[in-house]
């Protein structure tokens, strides 16, 4: 196992960065060392999540967004990283990662770094290491990080806990207006995009989404986007929510293949970034994310600890009793813990 030089990563050595990402993904010890060494340099990047059902055009949209941010920023273009997650096969553990196919325009730009990730069994639309990847890219100086989730259905909402800004991509013809008022992925949107807006039915989709948002606001106490995440753990002492000017998620029509509507999306993403900073939500989100990361680390460590001290024989005898219906799962738990 080779040593990875954290300074090389900060100075823009792309091979060192890439190798570090692999070490982190595989859980190799040098990966942990490099994360520790680079942690002080993180916390600057704007993490933008792109999520939505399979085939709504997320990769194409990310391609256009990355191009737009690289070419149109007047105050010096930000360095852009893209993390694209695709599912692993539940049978073979293998994966076909095809998001780069839509991102060929971006090659040759040294200010862009794209990494494909397999979900490796994680269910929330991201991979286990996606958050760690984002912090490494942050430390490597990437100011804007797009995180494209697995083609998500309704409940894959991990991205809301990781990204500062969540863009949910819809396409015409994927469901009626009841889909639009179901809980889940639409609730986490800071910005809603109706992609493939050149297709018939796009206006109806946009209208259904706007109506959904209108209903939410009409109810008065429905938490506006972003804020509900902050009160996930109500029994724990999280930062109190500052009283920000409300952010109303806009609904934008985009035709990503032609670049139509992309400029408006870019300015909404910038606007949301400003809003997060002005309202103090940025710090709250960061604090809550670090808290959750820590809780996850503790959970993983406790689990590993338990597995290490596990009495295999006892476990199997309890399991056998459980299979024979001689004890209930709760009783089995009591005997094992």
């Amino acid at each position: 196992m080779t040593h990875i030089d954290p300074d090389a990563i900060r100075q823009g050595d792309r091979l060192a960065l890439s190798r570090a990402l692999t070490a982190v993904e595989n859980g190799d010890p040098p990966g942990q060392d490099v994360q520790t060494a680079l942690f002080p340099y993180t916390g600057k990047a704007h993490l933008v999540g792109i999520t939505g059902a399979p085939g709504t055009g997320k990769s194409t949209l990310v391609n256009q967004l990355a191009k737009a941010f690289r070419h149109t920023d007047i105050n010096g273009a930000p360095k852009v990283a893209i993390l694209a997650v695709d599912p692993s096969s539940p049978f073979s553990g293998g994966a076909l990662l095809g998001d780069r196919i839509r991102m060929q325009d971006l090659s040759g730009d040294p200010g862009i770094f794209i990494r494909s990730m397999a979900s490796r069994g994680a269910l929330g639309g991201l991979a286990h290491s996606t958050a760690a990847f984002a912090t490494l890219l942050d430390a490597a100086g990437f100011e804007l990080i797009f995180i494209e989730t697995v083609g998500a259905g309704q409940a894959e909402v991990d991205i809301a806990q990781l990204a500062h800004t969540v863009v949910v991509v819809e396409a015409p013809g994927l469901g009626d207006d009841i889909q639009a008022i179901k809980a889940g992925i639409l609730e986490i949107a800071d910005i809603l995009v109706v992609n493939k807006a050149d297709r018939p039915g796009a206006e109806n989709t946009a209208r259904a989404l706007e109506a959904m948002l209108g209903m939410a606001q009409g109810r008065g106490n429905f938490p506006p986007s972003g804020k509900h995440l902050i009160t996930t753990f109500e029994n724990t002492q999280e930062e109190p929510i500052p009283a920000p000017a409300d952010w109303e998620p806009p609904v934008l029509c985009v035709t990503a293949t032609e670049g139509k509507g992309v400029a408006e999306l870019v300015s909404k993403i910038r606007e949301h970034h400003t809003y997060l900073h002005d309202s103090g939500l940025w710090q709250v989100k960061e604090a809550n994310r670090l808290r959750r990361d820590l809780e996850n680390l503790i959970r993983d460590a406790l689990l590993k600890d338990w597995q290490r001290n596990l009495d295999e024989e006892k476990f199997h005898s309890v399991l056998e009793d459980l299979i024979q219906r001689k004890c209930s799962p709760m009783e089995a738990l009591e005997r094992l813990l």
Partner: protein
Amino acid sequence: MTDRKIRVLIAKPGLDGHDRGAKVVARALRDAGMEVIYTGLRQTPDMIAESALQEDVDVVGLSILSGAHNALVPAVIDKLRASGMDDVRVFVGGIIPEADIPALLDKGVYAVYGPGTDTQTVAAEIKAALNPSNN
């Protein structure tokens, strides 16, 4: 404890537009438990080397049906080596005349596969190429 996966880049350099073979191989390697990155058609050697670097792959598979392999394969290998990826293994698939194979192997390709190759052979030989000691 590590959770290592073999990562493979399947790339189509040059101008031919037929990627059925590349997709069949990509699918087969997925089924063999590997993480396969497919980059689509008409890639330049620079693009392939850059993708291989960003994805930190163990293996690059080049699918070429155009007859330009004698130019493209060495170009890709030179770019890979120039960007510090000395340990990446390369195989070639497609329509490659027998007479051209020795030169490609000489250049550092570890295998050349023609039409009709069993995809399980491709997967097994990737594993062998990455763990020479296990043979």
